[in-house]
């Protein structure tokens, strides 16, 4: 192989090695049902109020309102994950498990398990 090819191959190997050894997957977390239940309660406590705010922000547009609600949820999920030193996946997983298993929550109305079909706005 000519010298240029060897240099190129060496550089590509460095790139591959760097990518392959870069830190990645979140560390395993001990399963703590009480913590997950608390996360679920915190994530869902004011779901109805958040949805009402979103409906006012996007009147007549259920998808946009739902999307706005989920934007609030993702911010909260990230904040809770940072505060409790758990992964974002743990927070999202708690919401999913709680919805499916009907865990107790503080929201005044039943939680919503459906979403409006995707209807992106014509203007952003």
């Amino acid at each position: 192989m000519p010298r240029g090819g060897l240099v190129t191959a060496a550089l590509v190997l460095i790139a591959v090695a760097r990518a392959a050894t870069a830190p990645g997957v979140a560390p395993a977390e001990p399963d703590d049902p009480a913590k997950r239940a608390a996360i679920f309660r915190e994530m869902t406590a004011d779901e109805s109020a958040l949805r009402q705010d979103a409906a006012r922000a996007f009147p007549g547009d259920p998808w946009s309102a739902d999307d706005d609600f989920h934007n609030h949820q993702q911010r909260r999920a990230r904040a809770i994950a940072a505060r409790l030193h758990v992964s974002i996946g743990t927070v999202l997983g708690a919401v999913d498990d709680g919805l499916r298993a009907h865990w107790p929550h503080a929201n005044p109305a039943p939680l919503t398990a459906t979403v409006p079909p995707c209807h992106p706005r014509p203007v952003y």
Partner: protein
Amino acid sequence: MSPARRVAGLAARGSFRIPAFTLFALAVSWPVLATAGMMNLFRDAQVLFAYERDAAWSVLRFGSLPLWDPFYCGGLYALGTPQSRFVSPTFLLSLLFGPARGEALTIFVMLIVGLEGTFRYARSRGAGSLGAMLAAPVFAVSGVFIASPFLGWTNFFGFQLVPWALVLLRRAWRGDAASAAGAALFLAWIVGFGGTYAAPMTAWLCLYELGAWLVSRRRVVGERSRALGAAAFVAALALGLSAVRLAPLLETLRLAPRVIAGRPGMSAGEALSVLVSPVAVKNGNLVWSKQMYVVGAAGLALSLIGFARRRAWSLIPVVVAAFCAALGYALGSGSPFALIKRLPVYEALRYPERYLILVALVLAVAAGHGLRLFEVMARRRRWARVALGLGAGALVVNAGFLLHDFQAVAVGRVLAPAPRVVARPFQQARGNRWLAAFYAPMGRGSLSCWDAYPVPMSPLLRGDLVQEEYLLDPGAGTVGRRAWSPNAIDLDVTLARPATLLVNQNHHTGWRSNVGQVEDHDGLLAVALPAGPHQVQLRFRPRSAIAGAVSSALALLLAVWSIRRRRWDRLLAITAGVPLVAFAIVYAAIPEPRAARPPLRAPSGEPVIAAGPPAGAIPVGATFGESIALDAVRAPAPASLVPGAPGALELDWRVIGPAPRDVQIVVSLRSGGAVVAELNHELLSAALRFSDAPPGATLRDVVPFVVPRAAGPLDLWVGLSDAPSGGPVPITATGQAARAGEMLRLSPQLSSAIETP
């Protein structure tokens, strides 16, 4: 020999240039490679990464082709998703290193590809080796590529393939069959890499290259017909190669067209400023979404000098056209962008400023010419030698500036460790599209969905089911899951009577069952089954994918054959259409119900096109101009008009003549003569233009609003305006409404309904 000539000699040699480009790409992408295992939390990145990851998992975890993606939006046709990028050689990186690390390596590889492609294109356009090499980063590390890793728009690296396609096309015009096949391969790669913008924009450049060649060779007998033949060959082969991606994509967009309104644009001054302003990140977002097309001040200056060179003059029309297209509606309704938007496919492109990517490519080539100009002059003039040194130095500094900007923006990404994989049966979750990539590793799909097009979704999808497959009539029998993968669901079903089996995923006509009849149950995948015990095997086998795969495979063989033959002959020309013919035959041979285009609906769910106004609507009977009638109005019930609460009006229109395209519907609520709410909009129910509406039908325009806090009763005022000029469309009949200027005051008819409590 002067130092400049020595460096130019080195630049001409691939053994020097390619390692140099690789080293530069390594330096540029280092922050991305160093965080390759992490996940980008930016909203678009979450969705676009999920598409690639789900495709890779389909292969690696389930041993199946990435046809159906059940992990997002309740299931969607993976090949038909416009922004997915897995039909590309870079998918091998995702398979070998995992999707996250593969994405970082893809960026690294595409940077090298883009640098070398820009060099070759600049050379083929007459730039010198030195200038072409030093100017390559002006395009290959320009703003869109700096911003893309931050935004997660890895598919935008498909633009790095554009110069390759153009270089090979220029050779193809000369009768080189290998280059023609190569050009087709690159064009198909652009399509397969999620080139929603790259592919249609590249088509313009291809047409320009062909036109420029035909004009330049107009006196050479035979060359024009040869070039036209080569163009037809490339087009047919590229279509054949990309059929596996293109056919599902067109099928999807036919069913779920992207509806876009607005009149985006920017001034020439703004466009020039974004070419020299660095991409910048603040508070987890770009400081200005249009500020992502930087080429660098030195790159721009050298390119302006380069246009003084005669050999660069043929680039001037394309850079002017692309620049004007990038200004969008700032140039008015007759602007290049507005005209382009009238074409199929191009109508779905939202952002005119993205034409600056093409501008960046041309500027890179012109910058190479700028340096070449100094090189030539330096042979005779001393000052030109100084200018050559300064120009070369400026391009090196420019590359350093782009490198720094790329790294700074990459470092500004908000990252999180990739989630751990939880092995458990797949179920749909309510999900969250802002964090969409977290769900599949949990064995969940995110029903919460966003894409740039209205993904066909069932409103019946649920994120809290105990069992994902169930019976519509629960008492009719039992269902048990035997095996599950994205494209295949095996179930044991025992029925005491005929029943409908429901699967908590979206329906698509490509789903087939070995028993019963696959049905669309309000958008949900369903199978009508007879009584008795059944081992139901559901398989996703869409004919557009099968026919596309046959076409792509044949076209690939043809491309290899063309590369081996090298020169044109009649046999090659004849065979170019074979893959497309094969596609048509296979497509016709596989039975599949034709998917009906769903009716247009307002965001609130009401159908937009109806036979007549709904019950409760108050007749108006006004007309605007010669083409648009306002038949009726429906206001919300007075009890629902609570200040601060959402409400909705409905205007029932009808097209009675050829409607202009750019009409704005002007709606305002006034109280005591003052405007308290402006509800102007371009699209009827955010879905339809007057010009696209069927004549004679009632067009229901649902206008949502938040009930304003007003001291007195609300007046409703309605009019139409010509969007480009802002001037009113004249009222030609007022019907039962009152008129003030070119607006209708509808309150006399609605006073009881619209008055706030």
